[in-house]
């Protein structure tokens, strides 16, 4: 008896998997069971093949808008499945990946026939990996990325419950899914009864759907208080068209047109200006990285509104996601996760070299191991952007200058072209192939 094979057969025969894949909600797949023996997998009941995803992102790298979109997509999928007599076995955020900023579900085997009355086994997982991080944003105005990265299974209701201020506890969603669940969990753990209630618990389908709909409408309304000011600032800043911007865009487009990258990393993507230029010049897909959540929200909105194949992710370049989880290999570190064909590092190196005290040669090494070609901008020490970083501390960077940077870069790669977009800013197009 193979429950998994039976479940998959029923899901497959109903056509639901194919329908979802055709709608782009589920990663495409093909049944290649006939090839199993040739691959030494004679004992396999089913063998599926699917297209490889160029870049995997993890929930602790998501911005608020990405996480919210993932949660809503998960709930919408679950409701659609229940309508067809199917359900999801779990509710892990790692089952959601992104195509641009569009969420896509990747776990075909999580979809299985629904048994009337069964409880939602994934409820706690949904709360830990979707609801609680979003509540941390909305209720506490804190980013959950640091916490989620350390606690790979998410944020426990028992922990979040301790942080919710009294006045925020009267919200129905928080009262039930956080406070009450935490209280019941703590009490049951102390009683050491284990999951005894499981076999006796029943949740009618109508109630299950009502609960999912309740969560969906609550999550749809969530906003981050401090992000309200982000849009105003953006509007003010973009009304001033920087003179060097045109030259920068032209230089970036020239590199991209020449390299035609399938995958491009925009390190320090900010609001996605240059990611967009790269896409216009022929890059197929851009992953944007930035440390500033406000910028990520703007980049996300643009990618969404303009249909850009851009995924803006949160990154602390001086402390990127490490390889972690079981055997320190369950979740991949940033290095080696994707095969970027090119990168952009504009208005970036000074943040690391000056702001985080990383020697210039190490900064260059780090960038060059991410992609074989790209454009790096070197802001000179006299540039206002660098002066801001030096305003509150002594200048301990005698070797931070354009000549040293050019020398270090040319030792590691060929400088195809360089241009001073401003007297204090030099762009370098490098190629280490």
């Amino acid at each position, binding site marked *: 008896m193979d429950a998994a094979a039976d479940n998959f057969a029923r899901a497959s025969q109903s056509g639901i998997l194919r329908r979802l894949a055709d709608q782009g909600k589920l990663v495409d797949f093909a049944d290649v069971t006939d090839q199993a023996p040739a691959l030494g997998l004679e004992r396999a009941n089913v063998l599926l093949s699917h297209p490889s995803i160029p870049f995997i992102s993890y929930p602790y790298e998501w911005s608020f808008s990405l996480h919210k979109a993932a949660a809503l997509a998960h709930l919408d999928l679950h409701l659609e499945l229940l309508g067809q007599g199917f359900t999801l*076995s*779990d509710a892990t955020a790692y089952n959601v990946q992104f195509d641009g900023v569009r969420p896509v579900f990747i776990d075909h085997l999580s979809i299985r026939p629904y*048994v009337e*009355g*069964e*409880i*939602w*086994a*994934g*409820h*706690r*997982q949904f*709360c830990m990996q979707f609801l609680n991080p979003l509540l941390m944003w909305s209720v506490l105005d804190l980013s959950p990325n640091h916490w989620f990265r350390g606690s790979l299974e998410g944020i426990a*209701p028992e922990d979040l419950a301790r942080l919710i201020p009294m006045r925020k506890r009267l919200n129905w969603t928080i009262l*039930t*899914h956080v406070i*009450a*669940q*935490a*209280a*019941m*969990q*703590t*009490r*049951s*753990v102390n009683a050491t*009864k*284990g*999951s*005894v*209630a*499981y*076999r*006796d*618990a*029943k*949740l*009618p389908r*109508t*109630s*299950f759907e*009502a*609960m999912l709909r*309740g969560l969906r409408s609550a999550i749809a309304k969530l906003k981050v208080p401090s992000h309200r000011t982000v849009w105003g600032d953006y509007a003010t800043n973009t009304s001033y068209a920087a003179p060097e911007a045109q030259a920068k865009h032209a230089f970036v487009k020239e590199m991209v047109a020449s390299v035609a990258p399938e995958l491009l990393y925009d390190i320090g993507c900010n609001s996605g200006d240059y990611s967009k230029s790269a896409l216009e010049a022929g890059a197929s897909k851009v992953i944007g990285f930035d440390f500033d959540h406000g910028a990520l929200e703007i980049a996300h909105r643009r990618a969404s509104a303009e249909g850009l194949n851009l995924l803006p992710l949160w990154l602390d370049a001086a402390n990127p996601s490490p390889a972690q989880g079981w055997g320190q290999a369950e979740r991949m570190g940033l290095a080696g996760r994707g095969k970027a064909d090119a990168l952009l590092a504009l208005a970036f190196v000074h943040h690391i070299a000056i702001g985080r005290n990383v020697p210039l040669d190490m900064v260059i090494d780090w960038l060059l191991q991410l992609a074989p070609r790209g454009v790096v901008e070197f802001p000179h020490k006299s540039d206002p952007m660098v002066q801001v970083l030096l305003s509150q501390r002594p200048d301990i960077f005698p070797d931070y200058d354009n000549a040293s940077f050019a020398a270090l870069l040319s030792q590691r790669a060929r400088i195809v072209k360089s241009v001073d977009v401003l007297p204090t800013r030099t762009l370098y197009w490098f190629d280490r192939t």
Partner: protein
Amino acid sequence: MQTKTMISLAGFTAMLSLSAPAHAYLDPATGSILLQAAIGAVAGATLFFRTSLYKVKALFSRDKSADDN
């Protein structure tokens, strides 16, 4: 809030009578199960009450306009 609590308790007790098959690799956790038994009853009941309340409200608004006339 009182009504909801009462419904929760009633629903919860009713639900303890039937069994559900064991599934999967995921341990649902007792706190989650207890909560679902409670919320599930409420969510279903709220929907029921909302539709019933609408009918009651509709009744009253008809009577009122009859009185005014």
